[in-house]
C-alpha cells in the first residue's frame, strides 16, 4: 500500500502539474511548487477527499511545506 507521502505526492503532482520528484518533504507548496492561494484551497479539498478527513481553515493555514501535510494526515490517523 502506498505511503502517505506517496499519495500526497501523486495528488500534488497532478494538481499543480509538477514532477513527482519535485514534491519533496521540504518543498514549499507556494514557492517551490508555484501554487497560488486558489490552488492551495483546491489542493486541500482533494486531500480531504483522498484521506477521508476534514482539514479546518486553521489547520490549512499552518501548511507551508509538503511535510506539514504528511504530518497532519498521519496525526489524524493515529
Amino acid at each position, binding site marked *: 500500500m502506498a505511503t502517505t507521502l506517496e499519495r500526497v505526492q501523486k495528488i500534488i503532482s497532478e494538481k499543480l*502539474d509538477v514532477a513527482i520528484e519535485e514534491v519533496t518533504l521540504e518543498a514549499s507548496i507556494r514557492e517551490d511548487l508555484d501554487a497560488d*492561494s*486558489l490552488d492551495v*484551497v*483546491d489542493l486541500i*479539498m482533494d486531500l480531504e477527499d483522498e484521506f477521508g478527513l476534514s482539514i479546518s481553515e486553521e489547520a490549512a493555514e499552518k501548511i507551508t511545506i509538503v511535510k506539514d501535510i504528511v504530518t497532519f494526515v498521519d496525526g489524524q490517523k493515529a
Partner: protein
Amino acid sequence: MKRRVVVTGLGALTPIGNEVVTFWNNLIAGKSGLGYITRFDATDYPTRIAAEVKDFDSLQYIDKKEVRRTDLFVQYAIAAAKMALQDADIQIDDQNAERIGVYIGSGIGGLPTLESQHSVLMEKGPKRVSPFFIPMMIGNMASGLVSIHTGAKGPNSSSVTACASGTNSIGEAFRLIQHGDADVMLCGGTESTITPMAFAGFSSMGALSRNNDDPERASRPFDKERDGFVMGEGSGVIVLESLERAEARGARIYAEMIGYGMSADAFHLTSPAPDGNGAARSMLAAVSNAGLELTEVDYINAHGTSTPLNDLYETIAIKRAFGDHAYKLAVSSIKSMVGHLLGAAGGIEAITSVLALYHQTLPPTTNLEHPDPECDLDYVPNEMRKASLRTAISNSFGFGGHNATIAFKVYEDV
C-alpha cells in the same frame, strides 16, 4: 481628428478549421462543420446536432495547470488571440505593452463550469465547490486571461450583448484606437456552450433546429425550410492597429476598419422587431459612421441564423435600410456552414468580411435549396463567387434586442 484603423492580424478556431487559412478555404468550398453532439449524451434531447470544434489541443497554447483552471471559452480565446498576434507579427514587450489592449466578448461565459460545479454543490455540498468556479465562469475572463498570456497591458474589457458580443467588442476596440487610447487591440468573440443546460434552455425556447436526421443541412439561412439555428462554438480574434503604426512597421494590411453602429429594438426578450427597424438603424449607423453612401456597400455578412424570424426580419431590415440597393448588394450567412457561434459569431464573421475584401471573394450561403419568397435578396446561394468588392459590413443581433454592425473597406493608401 480620428485616427485610421486597419486589420493586420487574424486568428480563428472554428468548426471548419482550427486556424484562419483552413477556415477560409473550407468556407469558400462550402464545407459543413455540423454533426452529432459528442460533448455529452444528447440522446434524450430534442436537438442532437451542433457544430463542434474538432481536435483542439489546448496544450499548444497554455500549460496543463492553466487548462485545469480555465473554461473552454477562455482557452479558445487564448488560442485565437495568440494566432492573431503571430499572424500580425507583433511581439509584445515592455516598450509597447501599455499601448496594446484586449476586447473579447462572450455571450454566455463558462456554462460548462457552472453546470459541473452546480452538480458538485448538489452532490457534495458547499465546501466542495471549487475555488476556481467563479474565475472560470465569468465572461470577462477571456479578455483577462488573454492579457495575462500575451502581456497586453492596455485597455481591457469585454462586451456582453448575447450574440452581438463579438461585433460589439470589435466596434468598441475600433473606437479605442480611433480616439488614441490604444495603438493595437486584440478583439473579437469567444464561446463554448455545447452543454446539457444550453441545449435544454435553447430547445425550450424553440430556437434550435431539430433536423437531427441531416445535420449538415440543418443550418439553412434564408431557405424556406429553415427551422432554427444550430449551435456552434469557437473563437475569432482580429488585430486592429492604428494605420500609422502599421505603416511604420511595414505590416501586411488585410483591410481598413471604417465604421461601427449599434441600436436597440426596445421590443422583446428574444424576438427581433418585425419591422426590422432596430437592425436597419444599426446598419445605417455603421454606414454613416464609416462615411459611406448606402450605394457604396457591396457585401453584407448577415447575422442569418437560420431561425424563421431572424432571416425574414433581417431581410426586411436590409431593404428598409438600403432601399433599391438592397437588391444590388450581396448578402451571405456563413452560419450555414459553421452554425451559430453566439458571442463568437461576430469575431469569425469579421474575419470572413475582411477576407472577402482581401480575396475579392464572396463566401456562399449553403443549403439554400428552397427559396423563401419573402427572402428575395442575393444571398450568394450555395457557391462562392468572385466579385469586385470595395466595402463590407457585418451584422450581429443579440437576445435583448441588441443590434451591432461593423464596416470594413479594401485598404487604399490615400
